């Protein structure tokens, strides 16, 4: 099984505004790190232009990232143990805070490329019911067989 991941963020200003300039300039290097990271499988792309964000029907201010990884450890190492962490640290400069879950994971069979609609369904699921085997987080992680997991060492 592979691990699919969705995160959504509401922009505080238009993507082409000066407020978002540092974020947009970080896209290319960070995507380059993701694409060459050990255990990276796939990510949804609008085009080959790394600064072009995925457009969708869920609102112009909503930024989405959708990707697939070989394992929990591979995704963790990209999210928290790479230059991606600095982008996360500065998230409040660029995105609205939300009390609702904005990131989640779920297991997919190898070769499956999740659609955005399918991923947004999972987001609704975790927002309605909290983490479970079908939609979960690093903090409350579930194994492919549905059992809760323990945290990873750094």
């Amino acid at each position, binding site marked *: 099984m592979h691990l699919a991941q969705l995160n959504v963020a509401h922009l505080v200003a238009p993507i082409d505004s000066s407020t978002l300039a540092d974020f947009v300039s970080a896209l290319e290097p960070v995507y380059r790190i993701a694409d060459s990271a050990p255990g990276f499988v796939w990510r949804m792309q609008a085009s080959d232009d790394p600064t072009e964000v995925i457009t969708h029907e869920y609102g112009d201010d909503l930024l989405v990232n959708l990707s697939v990884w070989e394992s929990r450890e591979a995704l963790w190492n990209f999210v*928290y143990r*790479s*230059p991606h962490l*600095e982008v996360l640290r500065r998230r*409040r400069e660029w995105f609205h805070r939300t009390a609702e879950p904005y990131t989640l994971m779920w297991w997919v069979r190898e070769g499956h490329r999740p659609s955005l609609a399918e991923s947004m369904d999972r987001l609704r699921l975790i927002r309605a019911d909290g983490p479970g085997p079908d939609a979960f987080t690093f903090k409350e992680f579930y194994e492919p067989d549905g059992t809760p997991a323990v*945290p990873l*060492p*750094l």
Partner: protein
Amino acid sequence: MSVLADSVRRSLYRFVADRGRDVGRGEAADAVGVQRTLAAFHLDKLVEAGLLEVGFRRLNDRSGPGSGRPAKVYRRAAGERTVSLPPRDYRTLALVLAEVVDLLDGNEQAEAVARRTGERLAAASEQTGIAELLAERGYEPYEEDGRIRLRNCPFQVPAQTHPLLVCSMNLAMCQGLLRGLGAGRTAVRLDPRPGECCVAFLPPEDGSSKNN
């Protein structure tokens, strides 16, 4: 912990931990200045106690027939040991407080407090250099390409459950340590890698010394 009472064993543990990689018996024996068989005995005691982990690896580039069997190598075990008499449980409290900071959206305040804490720690320490101060704080600093990197994350347990909060606070605390030492020209930034602390220090002359 009594396993570490023996001074040879303690030196071997420290040597393996400081390397941050797999270490062979011969290398460890030479470093500590004891016979290889004695080193092997103590290293295996440390493995039994769960302080070191063991692996098998070829220590030379040869492979195939005649290259010999893989050598036993040692590295520091991932788990942590804490001794507290009388019993104390700061870990659970840290996890609860981290959760509270998240709920209150208090990341910025947490970073500000961490920065001030760093300043106070630096002021209270007798150390005057950042590497020495980081060593005293348990970060296990080492040098790489002119930067100071940190082998150990002193906040690992809450960093696993609240990585964003704890790494941001750690960065702020390191900024505070520098400020407290009056070493404000040294830069510190997030530069995380798997298995290490999330920050790295750049010397003040970094980026400007190439012309000298």
